[in-house]
C-alpha cells in the first residue's frame, strides 16, 4: 500500500489550519521563518490543527510560550502541503489534529518560503531565555 493510500482523510480546502511555532530560531522580525514548514526524507510530515475544531488556547497550553500561525489548507495544498486528519501521537485527545505531508517535487524550499509568507500570526511566541 502506498503512503498516500494509508493517510487519513484529506482536510477540505476551505478549512484553515493552526501550526504551533515551538523553536525560537524559527521566529524572526515578528514572523515565522520557512523553517516552520521544513519536511523531507524520513521526517516528511508536520503537525497542525484544524481551526474550526480547535481552541487556540489549547495549543498554547500544550506548548507553553509557543507562537501560533494560521494558513489556508487549500492554498497550502497548491504548494504541495497535503493536510490529512490523523491522530496526534503526543496528545490523543487532540481531536482537530492533522499531519501535513509535503508532496511537492523539486522546489521544496520555495514552497516553504511561500507558505511562511502567506500565513498569518495568531499568537506571538513568548520564548524563554
Amino acid at each position, binding site marked *: 500500500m502506498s503512503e498516500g493510500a494509508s493517510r487519513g482523510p484529506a482536510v477540505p480546502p476551505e478549512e484553515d489550519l493552526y501550526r504551533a511555532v515551538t523553536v525560537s530560531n524559527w521566529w524572526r522580525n515578528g514572523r515565522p521563518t520557512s523553517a516552520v514548514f521544513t519536511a523531507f526524507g524520513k*521526517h516528511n510530515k508536520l503537525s497542525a490543527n484544524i481551526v474550526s475544531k480547535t481552541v487556540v488556547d489549547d495549543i498554547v497550553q500544550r506548548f507553553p510560550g509557543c507562537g501560533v500561525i494560521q494558513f489556508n489548507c487549500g492554498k497550502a495544498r497548491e504548494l504541495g502541503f497535503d493536510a490529512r486528519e490523523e491522530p496526534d501521537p503526543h496528545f490523543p485527545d487532540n481531536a482537530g489534529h492533522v499531519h501535513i505531508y509535503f508532496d511537492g517535487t523539486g522546489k521544496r524550499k520555495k514552497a516553504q*518560503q511561500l507558505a511562511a509568507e502567506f500565513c498569518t500570526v495568531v499568537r506571538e511566541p513568548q520564548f524563554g531565555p
Partner: protein
Amino acid sequence: MPPTMLDGCGTAASHEFEDNWVPTQYYDPEFVARVDADLDKLAQLPAEWDKFGAPPISRDVIDAAKRFIRELPEHLAPRPYVTPLAPGNLQFEWQEGDRLLQLEFEDARTIRYLKWDPTEQMEDEDVFSAKRIELATNLIRWFIRGVENV
C-alpha cells in the same frame, strides 16, 4: 558585538584586479568561532527538541557545516543565522528585509540553497556538493551585493 563593515579592500591601482574587486568586507575575526559556537549549541539539542519528534541534529551534518565555515574566504559576510531543522539537519541563513539566502545542509554532502528577493523576482533553488565552496561563495556574494544596493 556586530561585525564591522570596512569599505574597500585596498586601492584599485591596477585594472587587472577590477574583476575581483570586493567593494565591502565584513571584518569579523570571531566569525568562525561564533558560528562554531552556534553549531555546538545545535549539537546539544536532544531528541524531540521541536516538541514534535525531531531527531537530534546529525553529527555528520554539524561537522560538515563546521568544515564549510572554515573554508569560506575571510571577511566575506556577516554571521549567518544558524537554524536547526526538524529532519535533523540545519541551515545557514542571511536575511535583510525580504532578501534571503538559505544554505541548507540536507546531509553532510549536499547543500540545497534558496536565493530569494521579490524586488528582483529572484526565486532560485537548487542543490550542490558541500565541497563546492566557490559556488557557495558566489551565492553569499549575491546576497551581499543586494544588501549594499539597498
